């Protein structure tokens, strides 16, 4: 038998007590003035204007916390003043003018000025500067500053210019600070004018932000925000269920339904500016309009939404979601499998002699992406389409798309946080764009003139006509508008954002 001395007993008891205390402390985290968000992507870079991260819609929630955009955007996508309080075109559309907000400070205390705006726009417009949207920013130049008013020449008319100022890469950067510390220095210690300042950043782990007390839009409700980078969905579910995090996004719908029913947790699902679609390539069997139409009208989108996505999506007939400015509810692609069979029969196909092609898809990149394609392939089989599923990574999709080598059908998603038709129908369907797949002169001829159309109503009507033409010819198969599940502790009030990135500045204690 082992004998213990009194000293050993006391030491063991103390160790046990400390262990228990330590383990107990672990499960809790600071509440009250801190909100912890289990976030679904990592943050590769602090520069919101260059590189891959600048065009990642999800990361914008972090960028908008630290930086301000030229023009602001409300959660319902409506535009509002940002660092520009007023803006517009000259009557002849040959110039733009902008009024810069006064009394704003950078996080280091230095004043924000019109020079920062000019420098940011010039930097963004450099074609070799690494800004993926330089092709928009480069359309204005020759900036002049007069007090807090900026004017610039329109080098090429771009009707969506001001919309892009609240979209990807549309952020104002600190001229003096950036020139002083350089790109690497800015990555190490970024500053903005936004509602939060960067307190601590541990790559692939977390970023801790603290409230900007001098924020021009009013100090945010939470003093501290922690974005924990938790890319794994299972781990995000665990984070919110264990109480380690207060808010999380993009959990599987089954888990969302289970967790929002738990005590202390709430949830909201909101349609976002992201759609699921099937690109069709003008090649092989897709050159036959009957095949394309049959493929489009034999998909029971409602069944997919109800059974696969638990009702958390909206069927769509065009590439414009209901919140977009060119949405036309009169354009409807019906579900008519019998008509699909007739069309295929007219082209010599049927269930006994199916038309065959490959459909490419990612697996796990978007909610139920692969499962949706599986369901669609099953629906197609019943009418006389035999599609073989090829799974690939998103990187391969981009490579094949840029080289115009995608399969006859390829599943993809498309985000559009400014809701303008150029950034959905336009870039995805205009042949010369490296992001499009369908490439025919008839469609390019319809779209081409719309890029520079100065009459806004004529421009929107033109895009609606394009969408109708696309639907009548089934040049693409729009499927659903995504909805984003957000889970949160009931002690937090969360304002969902149609852009798909709930922002901590719009959260408050319940």
């Amino acid at each position: 038998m082992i004998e213990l001395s009194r000293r050993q007993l006391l030491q063991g008891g103390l160790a046990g007590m400390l262990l228990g205390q330590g383990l107990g402390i672990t499960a809790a985290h600071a509440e009250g003035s801190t909100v912890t968000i289990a976030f679904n992507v990592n943050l590769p870079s602090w520069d919101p204007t260059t590189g891959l991260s600048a065009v990642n819609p999800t990361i914008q929630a972090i960028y908008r916390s630290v930086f301000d955009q030229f023009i602001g955007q409300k959660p319902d996508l409506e535009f509002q003043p940002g660092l520009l309080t007023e803006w517009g075109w000259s009557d002849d559309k040959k110039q733009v003018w902008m009024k810069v907000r006064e009394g704003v400070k950078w996080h280091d205390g230095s004043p924000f000025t019109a020079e920062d705006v000019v420098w940011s726009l010039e930097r963004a417009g450099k074609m070799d500067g690494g800004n993926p949207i330089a092709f928009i920013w480069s359309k204005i130049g020759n900036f002049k500053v007069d007090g807090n008013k900026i004017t610039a020449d329109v080098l090429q008319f771009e009707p969506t210019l001001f919309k892009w100022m609240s979209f990807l890469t549309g952020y104002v950067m600190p001229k003096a600070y950036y020139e002083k510390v350089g790109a690497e220095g800015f990555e190490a210690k970024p500053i903005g004018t936004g509602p939060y300042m960067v307190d601590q950043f541990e790559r692939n782990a977390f970023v801790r932000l603290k409230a900007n007390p001098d924020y021009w839009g009013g100090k945010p409700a939470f003093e501290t925000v922690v974005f924990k980078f938790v890319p794994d969905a299972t781990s995000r579910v665990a984070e919110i269920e264990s109480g380690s995090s207060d808010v999380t996004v993009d959990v599987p719908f089954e888990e969302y339904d289970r967790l929002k029913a738990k005590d202390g947790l709430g949830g909201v699902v909101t349609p976002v500016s992201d759609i699921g679609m099937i690109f069709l390539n003008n090649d092989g069997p897709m050159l036959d309009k009957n095949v394309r139409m049959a493929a489009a009208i034999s998909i029971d989108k409602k069944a997919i939404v109800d059974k696969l996505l638990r009702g958390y999506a909206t069927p769509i007939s065009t590439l414009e979601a209901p919140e977009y400015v060119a949405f036309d509810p009169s354009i409807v692609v019906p579900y008519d499998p019998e008509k699909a069979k007739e069309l295929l029969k007219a082209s010599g196909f049927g269930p006994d002699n199916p038309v065959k092609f490959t459909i490419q898809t990612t697996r796990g990149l978007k909610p139920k992406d692969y499962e949706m394609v599986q369901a669609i392939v099953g629906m197609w089989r019943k009418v006389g389409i035999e599609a073989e599923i090829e799974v690939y990574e998103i990187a391969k999709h981009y490579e094949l798309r840029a080289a115009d080598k995608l399969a006859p059908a390829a599943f993809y998603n498309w985000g559009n946080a400014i809701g303008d038709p150029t950034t959905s129908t336009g870039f995805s369907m205009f042949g010369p764009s490296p992001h499009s797949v369908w490439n025919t002169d008839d469609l390019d001829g319809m779209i081409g003139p719309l890029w520079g159309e100065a009459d806004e109503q004529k421009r929107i009507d033109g895009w609606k006509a394009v969408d109708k033409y696309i639907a009548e010819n089934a040049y693409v198969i729009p499927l659903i508008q995504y909805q984003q599940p957000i889970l949160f502790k009931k002690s937090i009030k969360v304002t969902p954002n149609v852009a798909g990135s709930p922002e901590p500045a719009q959260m408050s204690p319940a």
Partner: protein
Amino acid sequence: MPLSLILSRALSALVTLFGVMVVVFVLVRVVPGDPISMMISPGATDADIAALRAHYGLDLPIWQQFWIWFGQVLHGNLGTSISMKQGVLTIIAQRLPATLELAIFALTMAVIWGGFIALVSTAWRGTWAERVIDNFNGIMLAVPDFIWALTFVLVLGVLVPVLPISGRSDPSIDAGLATQFYILEGLLRGKFAFVWDVLKHMLLPACALAFPLAAVIGRVLKNTMMDVMVQDYITLARIKGLSSIRILLQEALRNAAVPALALTGVQFTFLIGGTVITERIFSYPGIGNLAIDAVINRDLPLIQGLVLTFGIIFIIVNMLVDALTVWLNPRLRHA
């Protein structure tokens, strides 16, 4: 160890590293997924795409790109990350300490736990206890590390939330350390509360990595100990009246450990590889987690730098194991 042997091993290591560099460089350029395609704008023209490709040096022939990179590596420059816009060496240096601390912690746990399993199983050989231990060991061996990781997240993170399941430390704590070696520097600077917090965050991912390795160590060590226990010198020790525990620990273990040690070194390299998925599941900010994002983003310089880093770690570990094996077994010193 003779100088000639050391030089021979060093040369062999360099040749191995060169081979790793060639393989990873070519592989990331021939597998599907072009980094340029991922970053071109919707309004980009063919000229814009060509300019972007030239900007990243991807318009040159592969062999030319390789020699440029090889020359940079010789000067300590691993290039600039396409996605993170920082030097690859800087990024890896920031994240490598996290993986090293995790791997060493996991290895320590594996050696202790595996050794304990082997000793207890040997001490209780022929009894029902040995069978129970062997079965439990079999489960630990059969279940891969990422399944252990998910199990720990569910059981100890959600069902009975006693340990943190993400990150390396509590985000609300600012320890003010100068390096990324949190445990080492934390201990040296007396920040024990912070070290304790880091250990708590590390425990679950370390256990996930350690369990399969502990099972291997336990099985191999037990087998070698069983061979040793029937040797004449063990019989002599019993006759001399030495206690069972002393025979086990001082006579048997010392002789049985060498083969297990060599295998541990090899298995440790697999453990390092296992950090990729385990770090992802626990959102642990090491180079494994970094590697996944690098591959998703087709960040070629970062992928190359990470694979080179893994290669160097493997080579160093194997060299250390060889040296330790020779030190423990005098018969090998003159082999």
